[in-house]
């Protein structure tokens, strides 16, 4: 396969969109092109009803080694801040968007790369993949929403150690502590992520979308949670998908959801 140029590339396999991040020769270190493409594709996909799940991966067997260190310490505070805020557009699209997203991690998911993986709903990692909140190694705090996502996955104690000491976590260990949801064979993360994405793609889009929207509001007090649940479920009861789900349940056949 020809080497992909710098950026984020969209391909489709049926209802699943595959986003591939590429920065050749830099282990897919995060770049402005990658950011802009990712944001644009995610915005388009939110509006595309034929897309029912998204897989995010890195090109050439490496998810992403994080930020591009060569650009650190060279710009002004306000420029860095603008860059971070620009990145938050795709962070929000991944976390609060309605499409389920599966990360397929081969090689390294370090720093911003780990942040990106944890913005996804599910993380599939190859057995020899390595995950690290490597920010502390260069004197940085976590970004890409990691301070919000990581403690929810691994608890506060492990999150603090991973963040402050930049501990490297392998896929199997990650599975044990909840950092990773599924371990695949080396080179098999994409295939496993596609299989998982197929299952998400078969779910009722509105139910999955509203579930994501609720989880994205964490932390909510009990009363707010119950109120949103009443609003959301009230809407879902009126959909054709629920009628189809009930009919399929009675007929003991799998349901075919259309997002209607």
């Amino acid at each position: 396969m020809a080497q992909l140029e710098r950026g984020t590339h969209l391909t489709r396999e049926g209802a699943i969109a595959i986003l591939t991040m590429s920065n050749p020769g830099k282990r897919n270190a995060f770049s402005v092109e990658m950011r802009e493409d990712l944001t644009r594709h995610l915005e388009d996909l939110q509006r595309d009803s034929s897309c029912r799940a998204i897989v995010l991966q890195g090109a050439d067997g490496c998810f992403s080694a994080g930020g591009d260190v060569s650009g650190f310490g060279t710009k002004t505070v306000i420029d860095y801040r603008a860059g971070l805020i620009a990145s938050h557009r795709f962070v929000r699209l991944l976390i609060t968007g309605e499409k389920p997203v599966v990360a397929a991690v081969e090689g390294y998911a370090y720093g911003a790369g780990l942040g990106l993986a944890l913005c996804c709903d599910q993380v599939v990692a190859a057995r020899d993949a390595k995950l690290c909140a490597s920010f502390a190694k260069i004197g940085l705090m976590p970004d890409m929403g990691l301070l919000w996502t990581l403690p929810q996955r691994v608890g506060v104690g492990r999150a603090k150690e991973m963040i402050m000491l930049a501990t490297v976590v392998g896929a199997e260990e990650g599975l044990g502590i909840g950092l990773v949801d599924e371990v695949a064979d080396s080179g098999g993360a994409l295939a496993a992520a596609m299989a998982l994405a197929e299952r998400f793609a078969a779910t009722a889009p509105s139910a999955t979308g509203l579930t994501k929207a609720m989880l994205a509001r964490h932390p909510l007090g009990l009363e707010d949670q119950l109120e949103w649940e009443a609003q959301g479920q009230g809407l879902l009861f009126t959909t054709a998908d629920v009628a189809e789900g009930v009919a399929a349940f009675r007929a003991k056949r799998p349901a075919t959801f259309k997002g209607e």
Partner: protein
Amino acid sequence: MSGSMVLVERRDAVTILTINNPRQRNAMSGPVKAELIPAMRAALADAGCRAIVLTGAEGCFSAGGDVSRFSTMAPEKGRQLVRDQREFLHLVMRGDKAVIAAVEGYSYGAGFGLAMACDHIVAARDARFCAAFNKIGLMPDGGLLWTLPQRIGAERAREMMMLATVVDGAEGHRIGLVDTLAEPKGALDAALAKAALFAAAAPIAVAMTKSAFARWPLNLDQFLAMEADGQALLLSSEDCREGARAFLEKRAPAFRGR
């Protein structure tokens, strides 16, 4: 600078605070708190100190409050007791430096709350943790209702707090209550080894990370706003330039907190 109830020792960049009230199994009594609070303040203000280890003398972390005084205490006295406790917990959780608990023996009641307020918990395999409060008709204090569910999840926290279940170091490690497991009598050495790693981390990044955790609960938008402000500053710090240089030169960085 050593008082009688709290021993203070600096080893390189790590300050060790030892609760020294073994007759009461290092209970968080008034006199202990009266020395612990200024000792923690001093360690946080000490520019040479980059991490703090909190432990108890003679193989016992802290068996809780001073139970002998509980039954005769007037309500206003009890509230003051919990407020003093809060002052210390604020220093531990809102301070800029990583605090590591080295736990041997008992970490019960207020002593359990104290350990859970720390950033990293090192415990001997046979150490014992217990939210012992409701054994004597009390609710949890020492911030446990906030800290414990974040560490081990709501269900386990509920069981530990409502039934005063005893969890040992080994089980604690399995459920996320304990971060580093040590052999019996080895908690302090293991904690010092870990503290050296925290001490070598970039001080501003550690402080900002701690500050973020201490503000929980925040929603995604609030985290992202904090991240943009904090990371933008850090990206322009001397430490970040040093970190990037060290990374490219494949050597360990020397962070100075600038």
